[in-house]
């Protein structure tokens, strides 16, 4: 058998003007993706600095960016412990959400009965504001870390569950037929067809859950926070607000934002690495 000419898989070098224009636009778009947000950030910080100086706004109302930066550096040794706590709680909550979400999704696709019985309650759990059940959790769970962990887990669990269920169901019908013809077992079907097909959906859910786990951890601490070694960054923000230490509030907030952005980028990178060779969502993307 002779194969038809092999299509080049590397990026082609267009010879026509339109192709060159397209390449140039692509390069511009890639640079712009970094440059434009950076320019917006610089402008906002500049404006912030100018406003604070021009109107002589006191630090306890609105500290300028330089004061926030100095406070962050000065306070970092004491904030780092709480930061680490928040990072740990968010990460563990996310990991537990992945285990429970994927596990339950697999069970749901095995048994319609189970899904019909449980899914409505999962939705109830999802639509109930976490802040409304936090006081109850405060009563029933003694350990501070366990409480925060539980809240962060609840909010990050549902997107993983619902996306993974959708993904497991989205496997190609013909490939399912093929599995039947080759007499694949239930486990083989899951391992070789359904789980890989669900991967892009799962990663979409993980992206949402990653942000939510941090939000859950912070919100939980605001409502049930306690000091001591187990306190997270949210507690430090509360504490600083009681003492009118506004620059410290900003410094802690900055750390939370940085954590959120890092989680987002890390999951984006993971998705890119896992999908770049085959899935449309990751083709030609760069993190």
């Amino acid at each position: 058998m002779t194969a038809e000419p092999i299509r080049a898989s590397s990026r082609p070098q267009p010879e026509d003007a339109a192709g060159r224009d397209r390449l140039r636009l692509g390069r511009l778009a890639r640079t712009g993706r970094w440059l434009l947000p950076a320019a917006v950030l610089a402008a906002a910080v500049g404006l912030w600095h100018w406003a604070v100086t021009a109107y002589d706004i006191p630090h306890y109302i609105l500290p300028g960016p330089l004061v926030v930066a100095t406070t962050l550096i000065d306070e970092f040794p004491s904030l780092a412990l709480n930061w680490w706590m928040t990072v740990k709680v968010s990460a563990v909550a996310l990991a537990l959400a992945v285990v429970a979400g994927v596990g339950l999704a697999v069970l749901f696709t095995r048994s319609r009965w189970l899904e019909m019985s449980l899914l409505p309650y999962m939705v109830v759990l999802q639509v109930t504001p976490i802040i409304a059940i936090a006081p109850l959790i405060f009563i029933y769970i003694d350990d501070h870390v366990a409480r925060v962990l539980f809240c962060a887990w609840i909010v990050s669990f549902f997107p993983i569950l619902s996306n993974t269920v959708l993904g497991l169901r989205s496997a190609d019908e013909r490939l399912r037929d093929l599995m039947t013809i080759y007499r694949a077992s239930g486990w083989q079907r899951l391992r070789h067809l359904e789980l890989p097909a669900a991967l892009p959906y799962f990663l979409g859910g993980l992206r949402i859950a990653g942000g939510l786990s941090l939000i859950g951890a912070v919100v939980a601490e605001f409502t049930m926070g306690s000091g001591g070694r187990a306190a997270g960054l949210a507690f430090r923000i509360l504490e600083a607000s009681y003492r009118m230490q506004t620059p410290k509030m900003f410094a802690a907030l900055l750390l939370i934002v940085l954590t959120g952005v890092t989680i987002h980028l890390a999951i984006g990178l993971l998705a890119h690495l896992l999908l770049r060779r085959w899935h449309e969502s990751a083709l030609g993307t760069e993190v």
Partner: protein
Amino acid sequence: MDAPLAAGPGAARAPAGQAGAAARPPLVALEGVDKAYGREPPVLHGLALEVRRGDFLSLLGPSGCGKSTVLRLIADLIRPGRGRIRWADPAAAASLGVVFQDPTLMPWATVADNVWLPLRLRGLSRRTAAPDVAEALAAVGLGGRAAAFPRELSGGMRMRVAIARALVTRPQLILMDEPFAALDEITRFRLNDDLLELRARIGCTVVFVTHSVFESVFLSDRIAVMAARPGRIFGELAVPAPYPRTAAFRASPVYADWCRVASATLAAAMEQGSDDG
């Protein structure tokens, strides 16, 4: 079946088509098969069809006449409402090769891993399966593309991967459901030629669904023409032209004659189908 998949000196063997289709032993037979989905009018009614060992049997018919349903019945993906499907050799039923209209590859797996799948499901490790996978890929001319992902291949190449996957278990029977319908004519001609060459080498039985008269005459030694509403076998034609059939056969008057006969039969089948409907 120990015939090598890949071409080599002396690999070609006498094509099965020359033994005379009527003298071949049966492989699988559909007897009085009815199939309906829910309350819809039946898709198939009283369908009788015998596939014999070494056949290249085409199911030719208009869209919606139940050709694909026949394949799904043989593949045991669906059960007949009435009638039965009788296998002369249950082992053949257990090892089918199937090629769908779409290549139906796993986009997340490389070409080699796609071809490995049927063997992997039988518990063969990548290493154990590697020689068979390499041989099947070489047989369809894709030996150099084992590490590529499906999206990096053209439509014709993807279909070759699907054929390699169907061949890798060395099945006695391969079911093909309009595999080349979505391809351009040039690619389709080339794949038709290659398919015949492959089959001559491995000597398996093929049931090939198509709605192209030209394709069915070029490829098959038996054509079962189907009528629609409800689907049934309207008539059967033998195409006694000897294999190997090459591009020269496509240009021959004999080929044109057979196409005329098949077209006329198909037209009559369609007329009857529309009368009944």
